[in-house]
């Protein structure tokens, strides 16, 4: 027993090596050193440059928000390989000791296995999903009645801002990254991602970013309350917590860019023989397009957060009109990222839904190539619509109509996808499993959100509805009814693959119906009160909205409670679920052709891809064969 135990914690470290080796013990002493650097560096520079005062809290804090996470990453071992390389020692053949998970402890260290990282991502993001949801329930409690009950307006705005920021940057975007991480190398027939160490590093940035956003809320002096959009110049004059927000977004963005880069390189260079672009599953296509969006667009939000932070810390005038800054510049730069970001938050979900609907309808995806091409069309068009967020901001008048037109045109590729999914289900043998229910819920809710989106794209309606609850309703129909439903669909669909066990179908269906009904009761009335003129992001409201707001608040608590069913189902099934077997859905894509959970290196041998991934119901159709005599060169199909 002891011997076994020792074997599993290998390489065994004793004495001083336990402190110097990568891990939580090293975090404990390395992070304070980096904390010291974060204090010393600005003080030293200010002293050398004769700036007064030498000791300036806001500057030190900003530097700390860079050095402390770096210290944590050094401690946990995120940079060990590169440090070894930089020291000029010979590179060693990888012994794969950091690969794979034998016990739960292996999920709490730097792990290079994309399957472990995928689960690390999904679990972390669900924690932040719960925190973000609790914040929403807190401010719904405040909104249950007009007047100030529990929170003052400042705190209310902090809750709203952080609810949005956590849901967007710490849940939707990274949850898709997590699912993609788990599934993409498997679907491509690869043993891992192209850059496993970068992959591990990009995961460990994420809890840092999340903790920073949460810490910002409880900072002495007050949290960030400028909304998740953090408009300048308001944002540069917020309490101290705003700096946590700015830097948290930077870390999450860096994590996102690194993952996207990894996805792109993996998809381009690591496909199995025979896996041409036109044979890739649509989930891979969706993540390919999303990653392109991330690599191109995310640097813009990095820039925008730098500028508002510099306006605060270095007293620059990027957006301060007093010194010749251009206020609207912030909104242009911010939305040039954040509009593509809504596709970053939706395209991977499109991919998940394509998988689920084809498998559960037992039919090939209708219009496979057009499905892939419409993703590309959304990618291109997504960069040409950002100013529709600024119709009432006072921007150049001539920009309005072009942006209105492009915003409406982007509904075309999205419509192509909706009709393709419907045609895929047409006359199929539909299995109403939990992932399929979420897929159908997504389809119906996303169409509602898409339609209100087309309303809002037209300038006159947008001017009327701007900054009302109609916007809140729209964003939740596309982001909750859209993205969150697809994430749930994905988690249920790949749960058997990740854990080797089946989730409880009855609880899954209960979760779906509670979520679906709670969601509609919460958000549908918001269309109405929005058009009646109730403004968003305000703690108090007119008495005539009292009844309907009480109704919404009660419904939102029900919606929040439905998550408990999900958490219970996941925890229970992970431990006690029925063994699922390799391929419970009888799917053709490669991740289902190996055991559940897959072997440590995914495939004993690289499969040979011979056909399309969705040929359900086509006699004799094969996607891939194992044990082919010799891998042939990439086909020209």
């Amino acid at each position: 027993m002891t011997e076994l135990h020792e074997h599993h914690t290998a390489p065994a470290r004793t004495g001083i090596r336990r402190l110097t080796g990568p891990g939580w013990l090293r975090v404990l002493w390395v992070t304070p050193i980096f904390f010291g650097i974060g204090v010393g560096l600005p003080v030293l520079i200010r002293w050398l440059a004769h700036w007064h005062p030498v000791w300036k809290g806001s500057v030190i804090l900003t530097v700390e928000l860079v050095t402390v996470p770096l210290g944590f990453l050094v401690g946990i071992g995120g940079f060990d390989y590169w440090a070894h390389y930089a020291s000029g020692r010979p590179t060693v053949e990888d012994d794969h000791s950091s690969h794979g998970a034998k016990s739960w402890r292996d999920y709490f260290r730097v792990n290079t296995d994309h399957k472990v990282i995928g689960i690390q991502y999904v679990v972390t993001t669900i924690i932040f999903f719960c925190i973000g949801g609790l914040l929403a329930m807190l401010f719904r409690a405040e909104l249950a009645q007009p007047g100030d009950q529990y929170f003052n307006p400042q705190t209310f705005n902090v809750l709203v801002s952080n609810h949005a920021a956590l849901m967007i940057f710490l849940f939707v975007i990274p949850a898709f990254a997590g699912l993609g991480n788990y599934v993409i190398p498997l679907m491509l027939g690869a043993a891992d991602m192209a850059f496993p160490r970068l992959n591990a590093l990009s995961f460990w940035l994420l809890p840092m970013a999340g903790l920073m956003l949460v810490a910002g809320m409880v900072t002495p002096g007050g949290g960030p309350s400028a909304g998740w959009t953090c408009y300048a110049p308001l944002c540069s004059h917020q309490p101290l917590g705003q700096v946590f927000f700015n830097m948290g977004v930077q870390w999450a963005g860096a994590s996102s860019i690194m993952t996207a880069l990894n996805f792109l390189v993996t998809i381009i260079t690591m496909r199995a023989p025979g896996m041409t672009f036109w044979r890739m599953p649509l989930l891979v296509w969706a993540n390919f397009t999303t990653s392109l969006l991330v690599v191109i667009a995310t640097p813009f939000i990095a820039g925008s957060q730098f500028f508002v932070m510099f306006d605060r810390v270095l007293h620059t005038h990027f957006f301060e009109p007093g010194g010749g800054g251009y206020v609207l510049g912030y909104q242009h730069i911010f939305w040039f990222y954040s509009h593509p970001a809504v596709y970053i938050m939706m395209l991977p979900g499109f991919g998940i839904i394509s998988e689920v609907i084809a498998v559960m309808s037992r039919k090939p995806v209708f219009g496979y190539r057009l499905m892939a091409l419409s993703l590309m069309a959304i990618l291109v068009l997504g960069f040409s619509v950002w100013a529709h967020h600024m119709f009432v901001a006072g921007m150049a008048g001539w920009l309005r109509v072009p942006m209105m037109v492009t915003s409406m045109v982007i509904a075309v590729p999205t419509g192509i996808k909706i009709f393709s999914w419907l045609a895929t289900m047409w006359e199929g043998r539909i299995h109403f499993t939990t992932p399929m229910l979420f897929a159908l819920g997504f389809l119906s809710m996303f169409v509602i959100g898409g339609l209100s989106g087309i309303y809002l794209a037209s300038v006159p309606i947008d001017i009327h509805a701007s900054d009302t609850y109609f916007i809140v309703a729209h964003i939740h129909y596309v982001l909750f009814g859209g993205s969150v439903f697809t994430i749930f669909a994905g988690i249920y669909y790949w749960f058997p693959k990740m854990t080797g066990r089946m989730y409880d179908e009855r609880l899954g269906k209960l979760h779906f119906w509670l979520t679906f009904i709670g969601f509609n009761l919460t958000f549908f009335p918001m269309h109405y009160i929005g058009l009646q003129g109730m403004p968003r992001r305000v703690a108090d409201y007119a008495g005539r909205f009292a009844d309907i707001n009480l109704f919404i608040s009660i419904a939102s608590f029900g919606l929040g409670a439905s998550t408990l069913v999900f958490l219970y189902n996941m925890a229970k099934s992970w431990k006690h679920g029925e063994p699922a077997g390799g391929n419970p859905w009888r799917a053709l894509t490669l991740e289902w052709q190996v055991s559940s959970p897959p072997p440590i290196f995914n495939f004993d041998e690289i499969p040979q891809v011979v056909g399309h991934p969705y040929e359900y119901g086509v006699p004799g159709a094969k996607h891939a064969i194992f044990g082919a005599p010799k891998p042939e060169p990439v086909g020209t199909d």
Partner: protein
Amino acid sequence: MSSHAEPHEPGAFEHHGPPPIHYSSRVSPAVLGMFLFIASEIMLFGAFFTVYFFDRVVNKPFNGHWPPEGFHRPVYVALINTLILVSSSATMHWADTSIKKGNRAGLQAGLVLTLCLGATFLATQVIEYHRLGFATKDTSFASTFFGLTGLHGAHVFVGLTILLVMTIRAFRGHFSPEHHHGVEIGGIYWHFVDVMWIVVYVTVYLL
């Protein structure tokens, strides 16, 4: 036995190692990764250029004077600095072609020269900052000036760090005509930093 979780598939962890990797592209993953990273970097510079042109062209502050009256840009010092940085690209290229031909001395000399030229550039910029006579808090002209040159300076610093690692490895006997990925990828980044400087110089100092 209970000290660790049972894998669901017995034998799943007693594997000999990963199967041989099948590459589906002729581009090496590391080079492709560097190019994508540079694409991302270009967009980051793009954000800084966007705010520059918004502040300068769309906003038209200071009665149309850019730089505002009383502000002077050290155009000629920066021109010399530009020449220094451009020549460092040439020495980097020399280092790269040397190791491809198996000329280790050329690699080492090229890297050391590049490192010195880059460090000179950075030192000149720090001294320039010190003697400019204006600081970040003085108008949006100064903000964008320090923004763009500072962002570029940070990239030079990162590039120098990469070059330093390559130099250490070159002197410790690594790299060969067959294996010189590190030099090649570090070189790509360094050339990017140089080309970016020319754009920054033209925009910030000359226009």
